[in-house]
Structures are given as structure tokens and as C-alpha cells.
């Protein structure tokens, strides 16, 4: 880690919910307070880096990503460490500095084998930080399974005990998505919250009341809003109604992931969500293994996938098989569809995810004392470079020194 004091100049920062012209000071992988450096330590910068007018935003955080670059976390079991590392490295180019590798509904055996191997790991030149695993299933509704394999969907017959039997451990687990209407779900939600696991409702046939009960027991996230849940109905708002529910405990915010790839969520729906509960909106990619692959046909696990026009189809069909938009594309699409400010778009990709996990003092922010994970961007969100702990871990080849 660089113990030199580095001053980033000629840049604009996302700070305190606005973009300001100011310098960024970094030392020992953390963001420093220049006032204290000046008056207490009386030091000047060892190194100055000219950002040539770029915007510095906190590094993006992806809470839901199933794989990428040919890797599928739920299926490439044998070399799971390598797989996670490959994705961690590849997403640096998208400005993502922290992520939650996501496992879809799988047999208990897979969790037993893999969970201990997908370790939380600080990022660096090797790749983005692994915050912890997002377990999307198997405690979901069979009617809202999406692309999950129905044979491995489970119920919580013995409540929390069943959950532990299936997963075997909660070490390295950040988020668990479950259907709140399952029997014993509320108690399980509560137990998980007490153990600092973020509980998310999703892949569910639940109505608003069931969602509210889950929130009152500690659930704080909604997995890919609109997808794999009942549609909003004006007399029965379903889980979508959590965005405006008055049953949310005082002081708590319900965050929600949304896939803004231009395909999974209609722009009008995106706007409704953004205008209704802007502070809770978290951009997620929910990307599949074809993320980052070139146009053409690819063998991915059991499936043959065709990447064409930035979409992934089951080969030979027009059936979409998951998102492959990267985080930058999601941010760009989100900003364009909603017409929102750059601050809003950037916070939806960084701050809100950090708040969801309760790590907003260190990640998703450029405040003093936070980890120096950030991204230099053009005004159109193109990534110029990505930095983790104050070290440049990705440089866009289009931008020469």
C-alpha cells in the first residue's frame, strides 16, 4: 500500500451529494482530510496526479452478479476461486471496485463445497473486493423461479435449522434472497438479521403484507424489483408496494435492486421506481457468465449462448437468457431513461449499495476515512481508470498518459 501522500488535482468529486471542484487526498489506501494534513501534520503532497478534468466517483458496488467472462459462480464449481478472481479482475474495467458473487438456487452440496471457498477478500490490482456472497435461493417461490432450477428449490420446514443445513455456514455471506411468504420465513429473517446478514425479499408470490412482515423482522432489500414478483396492482401492490409502505420501521430504509439494462425493466417502470423511492434505488447488473464476452456463440455450462447486439440469447432462439450489461452500461442507461442528475446515477451505483450492507463509512463514498476505492469518469460515464486502496488497478487503453 502506498504510504506516500497523493493529491489528485484538476478533478471534480462526488461529495456530500453534489459534484464539486476539489482535490482528493489519498494515503495508505484511505481518503485523507486535507485540512488535518495541512494544520495538524503540516505536510504537502508527495505526488500530484493531474486528472485532466475527470470526475472522481466512489467505486461502483454490484450486489448481484452471477458470473462473467465465461464464468458462472453457480456451476463452475471445480475452480471457483479462479472463477471469482477472473470476474473480480474483469469488472474493474466497468468501474466496479466491490461486489457480491451471487449463487442462484443450487443443491445443498454446492453450498457446502463452495461457500467456504468464496472468501471475502480485499480488492487490489488482482481484482475488485469480494464483499461476501449473495445467496439468491433456494428458499424461493417455485412460481417465481425465473431461470432457477426448480428441483433445488426448498422450503423452511425447520426454519433456521433448515437454512443452516442447506447452506452449512453463513461465513462469507452478505445477502440472502428469500420469498417472505414461506412458512417460518419471518423468524428466519429475524435470526439472519441478528447475525448481520442482509435479507432480501424476491422470487416471491408474496403480497405487500407478507413483504412488510419480513421488513419488520429485519429484511432491508428487494431483489431485482419488478422481476420475479407479483406485478404492482393498485389494490394489491405486492412487494413493489414496499417502496411506499408505511409499515417500514422508523429510521429504516428499504433498498431495492433494479436491473437497468434496458431490457429487464421498461424505462417507464425504471422512472416510476426512481421517482417513488430515489434514496433506495440500487443498480445491479445481475449479469450472467456471458458478461464481457464478444459477440458470437459461447458454450456456458450446459447452455449455448449467443451474444448479439449487446443481448444474450439461448442460441438459435430469441429467448433472452439473462443480463450482460455491465455496470457502466447500467448507469448510462439509468441516467438516460430517468433524466436524473449525475449525482443520482452515481450514488445509485455506489452509495446506496454500501448503505444496503451497512458499510457506507468505508465504501461507496469519498468521505474522509473511507477506503480509497474510486473511479475516474468522463461526463458520459466512460471509465478512464479504476482505483482500489489508492492504487490504479485499471486504466482505459483509450486514454494515454
Amino acid at each position: 500500500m502506498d504510504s506516500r501522500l497523493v493529491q489528485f488535482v484538476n478533478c471534480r468529486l462526488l461529495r456530500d451529494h453534489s459534484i464539486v471542484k476539489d482535490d482528493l487526498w489519498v494515503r495508505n489506501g484511505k481518503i485523507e482530510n486535507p485540512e488535518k494534513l495541512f494544520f495538524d501534520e503540516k505536510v504537502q503532497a508527495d505526488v500530484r496526479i493531474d486528472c485532466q478534468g475527470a470526475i472522481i466517483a466512489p467505486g461502483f458496488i454490484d450486489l448481484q452478479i452471477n458470473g462473467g467472462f465465461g464464468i458462472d459462480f453457480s456451476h463452475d464449481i471445480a475452480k471457483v476461486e479462479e472463477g471469482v478472481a477472473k470476474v473480480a479482475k474483469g469488472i474493474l474495467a466497468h468501474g466496479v471496485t466491490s461486489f457480491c458473487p451471487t449463487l442462484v438456487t443450487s443443491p445443498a452440496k454446492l453450498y457446502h463445497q463452495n461457500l467456504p471457498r468464496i472468501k471475502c477478500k480485499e480488492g487490489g490490482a488482482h481484482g475488485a473486493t469480494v464483499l461476501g456472497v449473495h445467496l439468491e435461493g433456494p428458499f424461493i417461490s417455485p412460481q417465481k423461479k425465473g431461470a432457477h432450477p426448480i428441483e433445488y428449490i426448498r422450503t423452511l420446514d425447520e426454519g433456521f435449522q433448515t437454512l443452516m443445513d442447506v447452506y452449512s455456514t453463513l461465513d462469507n455471506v452478505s445477502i440472502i434472497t428469500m420469498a417472505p411468504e414461506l412458512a417460518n420465513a419471518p423468524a428466519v429473517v429475524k435470526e439472519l438479521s441478528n447475525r448481520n446478514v442482509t435479507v432480501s425479499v424476491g422470487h416471491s408470490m408474496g403480497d405487500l403484507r407478507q413483504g412488510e412482515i419480513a421488513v419488520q423482522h429485519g429484511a432491508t432489500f428487494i431483489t431485482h424489483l419488478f422481476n420475479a414478483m407479483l406485478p404492482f396492482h393498485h389494490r394489491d401492490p405486492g412487494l413493489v408496494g414496499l417502496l411506499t409502505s408505511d409499515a417500514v420501521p422508523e429510521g429504516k430504509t428499504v433498498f431495492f435492486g433494479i436491473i437497468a439494462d434496458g431490457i429487464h425493466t421498461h424505462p417507464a417502470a425504471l422512472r416510476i421506481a426512481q421517482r417513488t423511492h430515489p434514496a433506495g434505488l440500487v443498480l445491479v447488473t445481475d449479469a450472467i457468465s456471458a458478461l464481457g464476452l464478444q459477440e458470437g456463440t459461447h458454450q456456458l455450462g450446459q447452455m449455448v449462448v449467443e451474444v448479439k447486439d449487446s443481448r444474450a440469447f439461448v442460441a438459435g432462439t430469441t429467448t433472452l437468457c439473462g443480463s450482460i450489461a455491465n455496470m457502466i452500461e447500467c448507469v448510462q442507461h439509468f441516467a438516460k431513461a430517468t433524466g436524473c442528475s449525475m449525482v443520482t446515477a452515481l450514488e445509485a451505483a455506489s452509495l446506496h449499495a454500501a448503505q444496503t450492507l451497512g458499510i457506507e463509512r468505508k465504501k461507496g463514498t469519498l468521505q474522509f476515512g473511507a477506503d480509497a476505492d474510486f473511479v475516474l469518469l468522463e461526463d458520459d460515464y466512460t471509465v478512464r481508470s479504476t482505483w482500489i486502496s489508492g492504487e490504479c488497478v485499471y486504466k482505459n487503453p483509450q486514454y494515454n498518459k
Partner: protein
Amino acid sequence: MRLVIQDNASEVSDWAARYVMRKINDFGPSADRFFVLGLPTGGTPLGMYKKLIELFKDGKVSFKYVKTFNMDEYVGLPRDHPESYHYYMFENFFKHIDIDPKNVHLLDGNAPNLEKECVEYEEKIKQSGGVDLFVGGIGPDGHIAFNEPGSSLVSRTRVKTLAQDTLEANARFFNNDISKVPKQALTVGVGTVMDAREVMILITGAHKAFALYKAIEEGVNHMWTVSAFQQHPRTLFICDEDATLELRVKTVKYFKKLQNDNIGPSDTLNDAHFSPCDGAQGKTQYALM
């Protein structure tokens, strides 16, 4: 005394900044010989700082070999409070230039022993070789720094209780809640500023006109402490037209004529006259990202 009258506050700031730049560059400071600058805070000097930053960025002046001593600081206000003078100086000036933080001096309004802090400040000024140019402003009650009416004209750095006029003038920075304005401040004394080799006072606005009149057209009086500078060998007052409103026409005409006769259009205050000096921004190496 010299009295320089400019059209408006913006031109006063400009002129003052260029004067400071010229004094530093003429002095030619180096590692063995620092230029010592006394600095004010407040509304009036803000424009001067902005202009100085511009001049620094254009490579026309460097603060690498400049030492600074600020005039004052509130007592009891946290250093990072938006109204503290540390905050003002850092945000409006120091963070934009190349000054070495070790060469920056401000009174510490949170020192455990305020009297000791003041005595040590005087000592630091002495050790620096004395102030070459002390820049200051003037309060509506004619005070310089926090030397309120009635302050000894030979006073040194000390703790002062602020006058009602000052509290009222400053309330606008504390949400118009006068109860939030600090009641005490540490300030250099009139005597301290008088020790400087040269003094430059900035005065802008009609609300300062009466104070300017009292300062230069009436006698030396501890009720209008800026008047003490009538007895300083090198004092320069720069003001705008509005600040001259209470002066005699004769005074204004006299100094305007002096200005026109001695400082013509191609004067040395023109930017183009100055070449970049060592340490100015043009010579720093930057890594591009």
C-alpha cells in the same frame, strides 16, 4: 500614507493582489530569506485571495518561500467550523497555492492557555524576522483585526472580548443568531501590526466610509484604532469609490491626482511585466491520469 482609490471592490481586490505579488517578487524570497506576510480574513480580502490564486496558477507568483501570520481567530470555535478563520484561510487561500504548511501561522483559539498562545505568537513573528507586509481590513467601528475601540494603540497579541458592533457585524455568518457568535477572539495588537515594515489596509463599501474618514482625516484615537497607522512610515490604504463617501473632496482629489501622475497605464502592476519565478506552478511536474 498613500491612498489608492479604485472604482469598485473588484478592482480593489485586483490591485491589492497584484501589489502583494509585486512585493513578493521584488523581494525575491529564497530558502534563506523568506517573505513574511501578515494576512486578514473577512469579506473584503476574499477577492484579493481569489486573484492571488489566479496569479499563482498563471505562474506569476509563488508562495514557496513565503511565511504567513494571520491577524486573528475566534476563541472556542472548532478549527473545522465553517466560520473559523482557519477554515476561511484553508478553503479560500492555502489549499489553492503552493505554500508550505510549516510556514503558515494562525492563532489557536482552542489552545489550553490562551495568554501563552498569544505570547508565543509574538515570539514566532519575531523569530521570522518581522512582517514585511501586513495586509488588513477595517471594521465599521474603525478597528483593525479585533482591536476594538478603546484598545491600546501599542497593544500586542492578546485575548479580546468582542464589541457589540463586531458581534452584530458577524451575526450574518452565524445564521443571524447573535448568540452563536464567539464572544472572544485572539488578535494581534495594534502595536504588533505597527511593527511591520509595510502595512496595506483594504476598505470597500459605503458602510466603511465613516471609519475611513475617522482613520485618515481625524486624529490618532484609540476609539478608531486604524488611525494609529498615521504614525507608520509606510501605510497604504486601498479603497473603492463608495468608501470615500465621507472624505473631503480635497483629500480624494489630492490622492487621485497622485495616482494618475505616478502610476500610468503601463505601470508595473500590469500582469505582463512579471515573469514566472522559481517554484511557481509552471515548473512543477505533474503525472497525467
